[in-house]
């Protein structure tokens, strides 16, 4: 508790896009409840505290920290450890912190390749083949920029995490519900869920929230979305377009399938799935209408980028975590 009697709240972004912050702001007037019930002590997007102030706080003095973003460089890791120490409840907030999100597809390649690609693109004028240096001497002194880690890591691969709140970004109605719950806990009117729980999401799959009709229909061919007109009322996967609904945790109200677009899996693995990609592959295999290995192989040619399709959000959090190119730097 702080001097004014309110519990302390923090939010931080590591390697992320800022969408989690926008999702929090999209609770609109409800943001005033956060202000009324918490003392916001650290939230770079919204208020003016810095690392030093956090370092000066007593360990465990922040009740709730929402941490979004993956661990891409040493600064991300340093702040994750700092906030872990200072926070009673550390929440992995959003897909990047939970499972790496799309930027973790970089784990299929090496840092060297990332740099080589970026500094030699078609519009790049780089005759001396320059790469930025962590330490670089200019006439006036030495300049420093951080070094990237070989692979992107999730928050719980760096520090212990109390709760997991998935989504890219988490939906605003879920954020509002979690804030309400914490306020009730503070007021003694509710209990916290068991440590390690997934919060702000459902316990089933996106398919269970999806209004499209399923007929257990099997398919002979995978289609790319641009090549078909989808029936708005029938299961997208059963129309031959890869949809991540069967492996993905519920909680978003099946937004993308409702908008005529397949689920891309941003809410992460469904309850009990050890490996997201494996779960999705087995669900997809079950709709394939063939027992002939050759034909099956041909059908799966319709999914030309399985790594990107099955591990779009989850590579850092999967059993694979990275390819050998990633691990070898």
């Amino acid at each position, binding site marked *: 508790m702080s001097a004014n009697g309110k519990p302390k709240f923090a939010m931080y*972004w590591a390697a*992320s*896009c*800022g*969408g*989690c*912050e*926008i*999702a929090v*702001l*999209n609770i*609109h*007037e409800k943001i005033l409840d956060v202000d009324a019930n918490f003392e916001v002590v650290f939230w*770079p*997007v*919204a*208020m*003016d*505290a*810095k690392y030093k*102030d956090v370092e000066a706080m007593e360990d465990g003095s922040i009740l709730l920290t929402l941490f979004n973003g993956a661990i*891409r460089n040493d*600064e991300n890791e340093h702040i994750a450890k700092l906030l872990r120490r200072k926070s009673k409840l550390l929440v992995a907030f959003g897909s990047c912190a939970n499972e790496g*999100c*799309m930027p973790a597809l*970089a784990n299929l*390649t090496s840092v060297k*390749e990332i740099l080589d*690609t*970026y500094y030699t*693109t*078609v*519009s*790049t*004028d*780089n005759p001396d083949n*320059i*790469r*930025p240096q962590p330490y670089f001497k*200019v*006439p*006036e*002194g030495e300049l420093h*920029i*951080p070094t990237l880690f070989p692979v992107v890591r999730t928050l719980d691969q760096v520090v212990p995490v109390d709760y997991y709140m998935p989504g890219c970004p988490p939906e*605003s109605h879920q954020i509002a519900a979690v804030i309400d719950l914490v306020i009730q806990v503070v007021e003694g009117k509710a209990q916290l869920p068991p440590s390690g729980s997934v919060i702000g999401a459902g316990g089933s799959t996106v398919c269970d929230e999806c209004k499209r009709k399923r007929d257990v229909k099997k398919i002979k061919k995978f289609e*790319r*979305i*641009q090549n078909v007109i*989808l029936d*708005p009322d029938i299961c997208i996967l059963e129309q031959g377009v890869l949809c991540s609904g069967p492996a993905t945790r519920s909680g978003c109200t099946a*937004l*993308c399938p409702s*908008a*005529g677009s397949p689920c891309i899996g941003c809410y992460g693995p469904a309850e009990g799935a050890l490996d997201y990609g494996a779960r999705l592959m087995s669900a997809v295999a079950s709709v394939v209408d063939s027992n002939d290995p050759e034909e099956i192989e041909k059908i799966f040619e319709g999914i*030309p*980028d399985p*790594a*990107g*399709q099955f591990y779009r959000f989850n590579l850092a959090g999967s059993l694979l975590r990275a390819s050998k190119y990633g691990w070898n730097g």
Partner: protein
Amino acid sequence: MQRISIDPVTRLEGHGKIDIFLDDEGNFANSYFQIPELRGFERFCVGRQVEEVPILTNRICGVCPEAHHMAGAKAVDAVYHVDPPRTAKMLRELLYMAFYCTDHTTHFYALAGPDYVMGPTAPVAERNILGVIHKVGLEIGGKVIQMRKYGHEVIEMIGGRKVHPCTSIPGGLTKGITEEQRQEIEKMGHWAVEFAQFSLQLLNEIVLGNKEYVDLILGDIYTHRTHYIGMVDENNKVNFYDGKVSVVDPEGTRLGKYAPNEYTDWIAERVEPWTYLKFPYLKKVGWKGFVDGKESGVYMATPLSRLNAADGMATPLAQAEYERFYSTLGGKPVHQRLAINWARLVELLYAAERWVELATDPEITSDNFRTIPTEKPTEGVGIVEAPRGTLTHHYTTDERGITTKVNLIVGTTNNYASLQMSTKKAAQNLIKKGTEVTEGILNMVEMAFRAYDPCFGCATHSLPGQMPLEVTIHDANGDPIQVLKQYC
């Protein structure tokens, strides 16, 4: 040599950092604006199904995913050589206008606004959105929340989600809108027009009515005579979604207009070893270093650039404001960087008017929002105007539509050389031998880049929007002799 490190902890696509060096006399020697992060989308978007790239690249920026989704959508249309139906293009543009209204509103009220409403050297505790609300009243705060809400409602209706839209695919959209939704969107659009007019009136009263601010805007410290770029329609009017990119020199002469697939004839990017971000410049003019003028390829791409590079606005109310803008500031082009904030509101009004135009088009509710591609995918470039500058997506694929190359020139990146120059000039003018580097001076340096609404300031793009800065002044031995903080 002394060093002043301005190290903001807020970020977007990484953290920004400014190192300022002073000579032994305490005079300004040089400064470096560093971007210390890189996520590598150009690499990991390779090997993917190209229709996914407009969804993957949303995650470059959660503040302006709509811009990446639109540039990506146009790039995948081009990859498949498919021209989406008129309704699809209008729906995408409608979503985009709603996004512009949300985004420009946030910048004006939460970021730039506090400097003017509260004053550039007002106490730190007051110089933020809450200070603004206390000063001008809760009612205005409510309107700002309402504008953001309406914008996101339209984004979700057309884009499927409030953040990271998912409905644009090669050849159009996965869904259309109903007549009921259209009516709702139209109603919100009319409200947005009134809100934009109200915002311009507020700027008139608070900023333009104050001689001190006008002097600050017109002063040399925030002025750079550079080239400007911005997208225009066939009548050379500002357009955010489609057209050619107009390039004008510091005298306002149009050097030409380029179509998306011609961008490499016009733009090249320079690499410096002390920062991760590249510095784009005009290839035809050439790189002459971080300098102003007609001979230097440095350009700017912001709301002000778009106004400078165009002949006017395509909607009547915005056109009237455009004319007032230039007559007040002494004709075209305007070089004063702080005028970007005013230009942004002229654009807000245009976006709101265009929102209503599109929402009242009889074809907007048509079911004809898809064209199925029939040609083999190859290569394509899509360009839109992101709020912070011209955004270019360039994809190359194999015959299966798997990406083999991805190149991105992102809004803020265009302005990197210009930002480096602006912060340097502000520091050079403000920090001299014997100067006590106060918090107010730091804020005046900060104002030099805040007007650009830079995307590492997408961070600051939300609530109070003051970059937490800590400035440490070191002596020649590297020992700290003075620490200054703001918003820290």
